[in-house]
């Protein structure tokens, strides 16, 4: 006798379950060794220096609060040494047109960077100065707040880092950053990197990038590329919490301003004009 509709459906259902079951990943739980700790929490503090450092000939530089001071008066007109050095070190692409521009350090006129602090009667020697502009590594970074994947996060030493692996290219951070410090790779950047540095990765299409205060160099015990390359010593870098640091001594001795402090972001790049 032929099966009834009810029996047929029962058999079909059991068969379907039987087909699906063997392919389910049952019991194959990762047998990762216990010594690999995997705490991928955003903004985890940089480990406190107890682990032996084998990352380079010099011990890693650590700080409570990294900061940069720009002694703008020392910048020779038209000098782009810091930008060239940074962009070579970090494989920053040069697309050759302002629409696609990707930059880690920019060069801007003082009256553009500090539109609220300057006025038309200032001498051209001050107004027309070109100053390098960086990611400000804000105390209260708006880009970190808006990032939906925690691809950008703040380290315990103040550096606002990008995890390019996690960036999905939504550009919320670019909208949130009041300083235009972030650039989007609208095209595959690799062919546009003038000279590839194998010690640092490139980015891919659809990934946002920005200055990282040379985090990878600090880990090797050397100061940022822009600071070491500057012949005029116009860029001063160091730990703000360390009273003896160069940047602290400079800020203690002279008047300095920050970009758009009224926004409450707490920028950590200080300008001495």
């Amino acid at each position, binding site marked *: 006798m*032929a*099966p*009834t*509709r009810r029996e*047929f459906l029962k058999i079909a259902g059991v068969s379907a379950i039987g087909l699906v079951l063997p392919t389910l990943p049952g019991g194959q739980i*990762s*047998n*990762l*060794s216990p*010594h*690999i*700790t*995997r*705490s*991928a*929490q*955003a903004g*985890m*503090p*940089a*480990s406190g220096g107890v*682990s*032996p*450092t*084998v*990352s380079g000939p010099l011990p*890693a530089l650590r700080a409570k609060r990294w900061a940069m001071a720009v002694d703008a008066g020392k910048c020779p007109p038209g000098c782009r040494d810091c930008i060239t050095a940074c962009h070579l070190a970090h*494989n920053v692409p040069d697309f050759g047109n302002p629409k696609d521009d990707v930059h880690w350090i920019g060069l801007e006129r003082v009256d553009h960077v500090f539109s609220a602090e300057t006025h038309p009667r200032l001498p051209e020697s001050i107004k027309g100065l070109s100053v390098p502009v960086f990611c400000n590594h804000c105390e209260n970074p708006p880009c970190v707040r808006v990032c939906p994947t925690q691809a950008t*996060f703040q*380290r315990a030493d103040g550096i606002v*880092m990008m*995890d*390019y*692996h996690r960036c999905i290219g939504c550009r919320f951070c670019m909208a949130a950053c009041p300083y235009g410090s972030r650039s989007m790779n609208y095209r595959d950047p*690799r062919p546009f990197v003038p000279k*590839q*540095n*194998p*010690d*640092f*990765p*490139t*980015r*891919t299409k659809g990934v946002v990038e920005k200055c990282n205060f040379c*985090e990878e160099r600090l*880990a090797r015990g050397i100061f940022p590329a822009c600071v070491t390359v500057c012949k005029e010593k116009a860029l001063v870098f160091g730990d703000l919490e360390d009273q003896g640091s160069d940047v602290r001594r400079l800020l203690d001795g002279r008047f300095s301003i920050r970009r758009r402090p009224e926004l409450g972001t707490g920028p950590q790049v200080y300008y001495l004009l």
Partner: protein
Amino acid sequence: MKLYDGGKIIAGIAVFLIVASVPFWYGRGKAVPPPDLKLDTPAIERLKEKLCVEPAPYMRANHMKLLGAWRESVVREGNRSYRAADGKVYKISLTGTCLECHSNKDQFCDRCHDYAGAKPNCWSCHIIPEEVR
């Protein structure tokens, strides 16, 4: 229960099963040779003990998890050293440490990845030092 157009349906199912199973019986009896991985790079030849950071069976099964853990460790925790199970400390670096020994990426990484049909996207950002030099 009555099956209308039974002949056509059963013939159709038979044709479908034959077509869907073509890859299985077409390749039956033929074994694709396992990849021939080269471990004869100058850096490996120079090693006294030819050992990876962890034992080879562990690396074979778990190198992708180890690399994932290394990535999180460096990027998010700023920790660039790895203590192996045997207590040795290594610098965490894909292009610096891994490719230092396995400098023949196309004869080591790629051969096995091609065999296994794995498509890791490490190299869309990380630069292969051999290709730049």
